[in-house]
């Protein structure tokens, strides 16, 4: 026997990597068809997707609800910004090092939170993670010499590398980098969820005692899942910092943190494709609403600015939950099943069996 065999139904790693590479190429090619603003929006979607993909795996697979993923994004963003400013060189090597630092910082914070989270559940865990986001501005103020309080940390402008400057604009370059980084995160999470660890997470979610009796270390699984999810959020924060060239506590409010949860629920809990759909929604919806209200009188537009988006998100959440309880991805899957010709289910009505240990003849 050599090594550990793949689980039945588990997609081969090579196939996962090829599918991921295919989608990445499509997204990169797509950046050439988009104008600078759309590329900026694509970069935002990519950054949010890192956080929502991590969150959907955490909530959907282990049942741990985190309302504080915005804070973990902020940790990644601060880690990225502080490392970028500390490095004596720039360019792609500095970006990679700063990204790793941001991921490490968010993973460490996630590990500490995860250790507490493994002992909590439901509203207690939600409260703990919410408290972290609420505390973020206070943390930035307390260590204002390093984190610069409400102003946040700026990073030096990093333009398009010389070799590509003639071919791509700044926004496109940022979108391409965001897509590549996000592809790595999403692929890692897909592999993590698809293998033995994924099955362990689902088992812990469904029945923790039964999982422990089956030899699954429930506490360790929950801590690792929280850490992985935090690291993914940290990558999102780092990418957002790379795009905005700054990180500040004002960008990671409680409202934004809840919006990440809304994105995951609207997209479909536990689905990475759903997380992508949810990320698109939270980027495009405020922009669409802004376009609609821009034609209103200035006074009305000013009153609705920001508020209407929150109202629409609330209505959208209620509507999606009423019409498609499994989110947008769940609705797509259900629709595909309806349109696929019925295949007789061999197990639809099993013959009555009253033997637990069948004889050779019965088999």
């Amino acid at each position, binding site marked *: *026997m050599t*090594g*550990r*065999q*793949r*689980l*039945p*139904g588990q997609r081969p790693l090579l196939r996962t990597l090829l599918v991921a590479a295919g989608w990445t190429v499509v997204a990169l090619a797509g950046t050439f068809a988009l104008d600078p603003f759309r590329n900026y929006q694509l970069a935002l979607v990519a950054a949010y997707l890192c956080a929502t993909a991590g969150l959907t795996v955490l909530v959907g697979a282990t049942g741990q609800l985190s309302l504080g993923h915005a804070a973990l994004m902020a940790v990644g963003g601060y880690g990225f910004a502080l490392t970028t400013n500390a490095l004596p060189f720039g360019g792609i090597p500095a970006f990679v090092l700063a990204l790793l630092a941001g991921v490490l910082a968010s993973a460490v914070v996630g590990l500490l939170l995860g250790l507490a989270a493994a002992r909590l559940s439901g509203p207690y865990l939600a409260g703990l993670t919410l408290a972290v986001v609420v505390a973020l501005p206070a943390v930035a103020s307390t260590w204002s010499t390093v984190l610069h309080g409400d102003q946040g940390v700026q990073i030096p402008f990093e333009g398009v590398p010389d070799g590509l400057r003639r071919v791509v604009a700044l926004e496109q370059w940022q979108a391409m980098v965001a897509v590549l980084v996000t592809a790595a995160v999403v692929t890692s999470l897909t592999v993590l969820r698809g293998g*033995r660890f994924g*099955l*362990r997470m*689902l*088992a812990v*979610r*469904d*029945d923790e*005692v*039964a*999982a*422990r*009796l*089956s*030899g*699954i*270390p*429930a506490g360790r699984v929950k801590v690792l899942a929280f850490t992985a999810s935090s690291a993914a959020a940290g990558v999102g924060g780092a990418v957002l910092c790379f795009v905005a060239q700054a990180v500040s506590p004002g960008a990671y409010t409680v409202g934004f943190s809840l919006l990440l949860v809304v994105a995951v629920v609207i997209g479909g809990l536990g689905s990475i494709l759903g997380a992508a759909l949810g990320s698109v929604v939270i980027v495009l919806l405020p922009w669409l609403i802004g376009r609609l209200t821009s034609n209103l009188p200035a006074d009305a537009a000013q009153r609705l600015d920001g508020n209407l988006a929150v109202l629409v998100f609330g209505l959208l959440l209620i509507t999606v939950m009423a019409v498609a309880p499994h989110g947008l991805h769940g609705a797509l899957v259900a629709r595909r099943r309806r349109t696929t010709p019925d295949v007789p289910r*061999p*197990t639809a009505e*099993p013959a009555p*069996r*009253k*033997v*637990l*240990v*069948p004889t050779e003849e*019965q*088999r």
Partner: protein
Amino acid sequence: MSAQMTPVRTGDPHLAVHGLSVRFGGLSALDDVSLDVREGEVVGLIGPNGAGKTTLFNAVCGLVRPSAGTIAVGGEPLPPDPTRLSARGVARTLQGLGLFRGLTVRENVLAGRLGAADPGTDAQRQLDALDLAAHADRPVGDLPYPEQKKVALARALVAQPRLLLLDEPAGGLGPDDIAALGDLVRHTAATGCAVLLVEHHVDFVMSVCDRVVVLDFGRVIASGTPDEVAGDPAVDEAYLGIEVTAS
């Protein structure tokens, strides 16, 4: 049925519980309980509600911490850690179904064998053995209750345990399924596995078990063969709540 005809193999105690006491605050759930189960033996643990049967299972599995006593499996002390039971060859089913509702039948069985190098083959073998292969890729919640009970058993058996703890395996089953369950328990014991089961279905216990231990208010009040226990006045008193005079 060949499984029933197979002579029971007995040997050294595989599970040995000595002087086990468990307290929940001021309540004594188990008080100085001792019992053993030998390889190839089926021992039934019966008693009225609240007698401490499931608490004993929980203590063996490390889900509750005893205040006194020892628990040994295969002559070695059992660490109070449920996640290490599987590695020590101990498997348990839960009083309810204890299934992973979001998983398929196959995944539920796989979950009991994830530490192995090739859990897929082991799970398939177990699914075939319990005639569950046709349902393997269905969500476990879609199956009828007796089939779900089989999945719970399959998950316990997939790791080929040397000690099997069954917590109310006959609960919710009809007469035919109970008879089939009896076959399975005897078949499992015939492979050398020690089986300890908690059950309220007295007829099932009496027909399947080699020995029966009766608990009441956390203490062992009787033990012996099914016939010996059935004729014990203390058992009647515990179940009926009246003093029975032996004739």
